[in-house]
């Protein structure tokens, strides 16, 4: 095991105290909150809660001591950015007084209110926040499992997969076919597929202009579609083709040995195959019993508490949050909302529903940004769009607006990562 510094000490102090002190005193005086998952939702929630309730003992459980962010990782895939620009550590959380446990959580017992870590450590909680992100439904498309992803990367969790897809694009000869298989909803970052396609098309246009890109899609529509398609026609005519579900777009199976994607009526043998598989809430959510038959986690929108397990809250991509897309912006906003709700609940209050915003930028070229925004309120127990608000960038916006939105996209990434990790 790698040596651990202050984080480890905080963590040990936390578990030691938990063993020695009587539980009722702890629960009353120093409520114990565990957050599992240190991404945009979980890290935000843990930090916000500690600020709101300084006496709370907040423990963040996260398998990796370095976080690799997905937003902007399409820039890494296409050689515009270094992977290091995506990576963040948890030092600021440690300094803030959070306990950090860099181990996977393997078991959750809602009745006993404990989280078990992979080394057997048992952590008791008063409230638990699950922010596990997504996991893949391996085996869908048929033949696509973890081994296949080493040949046909998904690159939908940033890190080594992102670099693998980049290396494959760099190694591809001019004239090759790049194929992207896009899954049905719900999925993490639904517009990310089309941003990726755009930036790969930009890479091909500038570096390997005889190549072609095809998106095989299990959907018939996608957010910002008109803006994307207009930009593709303008910037990448004849280079990028989108094949919707109704035009035989759904990939049924894959053959990794030949890099082939199979649909109902066609076989596409690609030089580079990026298979983004169907998704579900992170596996620990299933283990905790907070995921329903859809594979995702229902929540009470006022508190993000699971209706399936008391004292467990779910935020970020894993949660069913109505009209809100599964984005980093949404995850961060939910993290703050959940922290506020827990602070009130610990104080004996009943939180009412809040209001949330989501803003998602996409780059269709390095200096060409478009956005979609939404404002959400709770109606009939679910987040729905506030009517008349939100929507996409204008379709007739001038080039200066597109350039400004590309700059705002970059500013957003700096801002949100500073708020969560800085």
């Amino acid at each position, binding site marked *: 095991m790698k040596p651990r510094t202050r984080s480890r000490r905080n963590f040990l102090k936390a578990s030691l105290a938990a063993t020695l002190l009587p539980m009722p005193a702890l629960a009353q005086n120093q409520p114990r909150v565990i957050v599992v998952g240190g991404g945009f939702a979980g890290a935000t929630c843990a930090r916000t809660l500690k600020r709101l309730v300084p006496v709370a003992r907040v423990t963040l459980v996260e398998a990796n001591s370095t976080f690799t962010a997905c937003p902007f990782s399409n820039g890494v895939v296409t050689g515009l950015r270094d992977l290091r620009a995506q990576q963040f550590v948890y030092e600021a959380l440690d300094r803030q007084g959070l306990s950090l446990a860099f181990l996977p959580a393997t078991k959750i017992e809602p009745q006993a209110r404990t989280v078990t870590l992979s080394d057997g450590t048992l952590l008791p909680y008063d409230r638990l926040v699950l922010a596990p992100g997504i996991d893949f439904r391996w085996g869908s498309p048929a033949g696509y499992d973890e081994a296949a992803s080493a040949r046909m990367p998904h690159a939908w969790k940033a890190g080594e997969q992102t670099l693998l897809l980049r290396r494959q694009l760099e190694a591809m000869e001019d004239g090759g076919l790049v194929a992207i298989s896009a899954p049905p909803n719900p999925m993490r970052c639904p517009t990310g597929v089309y941003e990726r396609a755009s930036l790969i098309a930009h890479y091909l246009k500038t570096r390997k202009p005889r190549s072609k890109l095809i998106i095989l899609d299990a959907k018939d529509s996608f957010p910002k579609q008109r803006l994307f398609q207009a930009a593709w026609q303008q910037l990448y005519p004849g280079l990028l083709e989108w094949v919707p579900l109704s035009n035989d777009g759904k990939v049924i199976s894959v053959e990794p040995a030949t890099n082939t994607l199979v649909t109902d009526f066609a076989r596409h043998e690609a030089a580079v195959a990026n298979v983004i598989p169907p998704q579900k809430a992170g596996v620990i959510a299933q283990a905790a019993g907070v995921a329903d038959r859809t594979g995702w986690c229902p929540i009470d929108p006022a508190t993000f508490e699971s209706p399936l397990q008391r004292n467990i809250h779910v935020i970020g991509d894993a949660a069913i949050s109505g009209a809100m897309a599964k984005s980093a912006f949404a995850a961060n906003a939910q993290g703050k909302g959940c922290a506020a709700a827990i*602070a009130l609940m610990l104080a004996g209050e009943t939180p009412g529903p809040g209001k949330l915003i989501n803003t998602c930028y996409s780059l269709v070229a390095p200096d060409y940004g478009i956005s979609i925004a939404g404002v959400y309120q709770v109606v009939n127990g679910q987040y729905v769009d506030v009517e008349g608000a939100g929507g996409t960038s204008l379709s007739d916006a001038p080039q200066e607006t597109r350039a400004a939105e590309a700059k705002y996209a970059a500013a957003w990434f700096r801002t949100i990562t*500073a708020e969560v990790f800085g």
Partner: protein
Amino acid sequence: MIRKVTLPFGHWSLITGHWFAAACLFGHVVTAAAAPVVSPPGAASCTGCHAANAKIETGVPRIAGRNPAEIVAAMEAFRSGQKPATVMDRIAKGFSDAEIRAIAEWFGAEH
């Protein structure tokens, strides 16, 4: 005694003192800092783009510490379409006068 302000905009906006009061009742020593102060509806989302930390380089105007009247005026102008914008016109339309005022006061108080 810790319950200083109660904003009429939903429970996330309450400044709570129950826990503190309960702790006093049972004789535990808890500092006044323990009373959670949470933001009015919508406000928590703003800092996703409007950096709370002044050191962040961004073309997005800071709203923390800004005069609430300025924030209200800007939001009203975004909402009516008077003030050109990339996204704020779309976002401002999602908030009522009372909600905008509460958010403006929250950020005006240096949050």
